């Protein structure tokens, strides 16, 4: 995972709609290969194109407007990223260039997927999101603050997640530093719950 800078800013693309689901962020039909790349073109396809097959842009959609066509920050509503667990939604956003999403709330699987792919999910009260949408905002990741529209907002992020985003730490590498503890635990658990452990085939 790439490191995120401590501070960066941009115009927050306003998409403050509630319950935006991952089918809208990246429709299943846009997931054309088993890999993680090549998804940005299909990002928000149902809203971004009037004809998704012909890729005819919908001029009303926020990411098609000049100010936001290279947006790095998205302002969103409640329960953003709900629905399917597809990480492709986050891969598509990251490939497009999004590095932060300021939303009223996030769906849990989507939130975790953001943290694993260099996107900061920032939950703020609706009033704050409404104020920041379409404004130039600055994100201070170390200080956990968003500034914009003359205001400063603090946000919560798990300290470990913040450390990993700032330092580009891979979660698997980090966990493998605890390999010994996992092995010890598993040995004990094999006795306590033998039914969990299966032979290769049965």
């Amino acid at each position, binding site marked *: 995972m790439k490191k995120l800078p401590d501070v960066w800013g941009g115009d927050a693309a306003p998409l403050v*709609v*509630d*319950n935006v*689901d991952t*089918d*809208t962020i990246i*429709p*299943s*039909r846009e*997931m*054309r*290969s*088993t*890999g*993680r790349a090549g998804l940005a073109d299909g990002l928000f396809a*149902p809203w971004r194109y009037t004809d*998704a097959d012909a890729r005819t842009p919908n001029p009303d959609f926020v990411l098609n407007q000049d100010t936001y066509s290279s947006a790095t920050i998205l302002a969103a509503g*409640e*329960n953003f990223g*709900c*629905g*399917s*667990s*597809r*990480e*492709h939604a*986050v891969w598509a956003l990251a490939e497009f260039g999004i590095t932060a999403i300021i939303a009223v*709330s996030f*769906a*849990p*699987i989507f939130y*975790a*997927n953001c943290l*694993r*792919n260099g996107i900061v999910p920032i939950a703020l009260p609706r009033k704050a999101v409404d104020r920041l949408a379409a404004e130039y905002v600055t994100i201070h990741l170390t200080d956990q603050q968003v500034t914009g529209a003359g205001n400063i907002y603090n946000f919560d992020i*798990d*300290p*470990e997640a913040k*450390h990993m985003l700032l330092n580009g730490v891979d*979660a*698997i590498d*980090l*966990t*493998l530093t*605890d*390999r010994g*503890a*996992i092995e010890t*635990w*598993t040995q004990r*658990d094999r006795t306590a*719950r033998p*039914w*969990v*452990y*299966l*032979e*290769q*085939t*049965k």
Partner: protein
Amino acid sequence: MTQTLFDKIWDTHQVAQTATGRHLIAIDRVFLHERTGAAALKRMAEIERKILDPARVFAVMDHIVDTRIGRGDSTLMQGGEAFITETRAACRDAGITLFDVNDRDQGIIHVISPELGIVLPGITLVAPDSHTCTQGAFGALAWGIGSSEAEHAMVTGVLRLERPKTMRVLLEGALSEGVTAKDMALHLIALHSAGGGAGHAVEFAGDAVTALDMEGRMTLCNMATEFGAMAGFIAPDAKAFDWLAGKRYAPDNFDEPYWANLQSDAGASFDTEITIDASAIAPMVSWGTSPEQAIAIDARVPAGPRKVHDYIGLEEGTAIAGTPIDVAFIGSCTNSRISDLRLAAKLLEGHLIAPTIKKAMVVPGSLSVKRQAEAEGLDKIFEAAGFEWRMSGCSLCFYAGGEGFPKGSRTISSTNRNFEGRQGPGIRTHIASPETVAASAVAGAIADPRELARKKVAS
């Protein structure tokens, strides 16, 4: 100290706690499918990471497999075949048990996992699929994750998690005739919103829950993700243990005292509690583009966002019953099990679907469900009524670019998501129970299943 069932499972699985408060939680089972699992396996191969214990990882082809009789690897979805062949090769290389396209145990991941006893009470099970919470019906902590987290679980045997809050949803009282677990789920989400369960692991309890059969419990837990919860589960009782005992990967019995302890202690406290009068629930149907936009079948469309009314083509004040439909679909991890098919077939027997219906399909949740239904003659009832009878898979629950309908088509569907475009560009989806789908197919319009049931009794 009293503990909730969630606390007990969590504590049993806690390997370590980090200095920053994260928990390393042991993962007992990982289940993959060809839609999202291939991405995880492919990347693991690229970065040369090995699965810690392949015997506890399973995979199935369910998402984009063709469901037409006589199917092979090719699918109607453009490029779909690569997902199937790549997943097969990756599973073979990794030493994972795969339930392949025409394996006799093939089926939708959350249908076959219990059928084979892969899910067990008290275990942790994850899959890169949001409806993994379905399997909480057996008292497991089961939840959906992304592909990166699936890699993490396979390589390390644990996930790094924040402890969620606990919620109990008590559904008290007896369900009325014609009301199902699907209606309970939609009622809960309509009342408490699609984000109502956010940040929580949700235990469903109360006499309306314990009265459900295991299939009904799976339907209820299935939609915990539509409620925004991390997981949904039900304390295992004799019904759950009897259902699982002796299944291929399950113990032969659950007699040890360990199993009986898998329930919330009396007086255990939850961070959030919701109580619902189950006797007041009616058959439900969605009217909009979020599962929270659902109403009783005899209600009128309420005021919603303009965009939603425009997409779905229904204005405020319109009675939802009587809305003409084009397509009827019975299937998906929500409602495709044998008891779902029995109830729908019972309603359909002796009826024909309306001539205005352009397509009606039943896609059994697994090939095992299909065989059982055929042994009971249910396939003949569906076919006589005008439904197509298919092989197992996720099918019309979502649109991957294969089978679809013209823009603007309206479907009544026993699935879990009525999102814009979920079943294809411009498709208007109404989600409901299989009985409501059956009754609507006969009427050619959204219809109350209780009316068709009454007619049957009268005739």
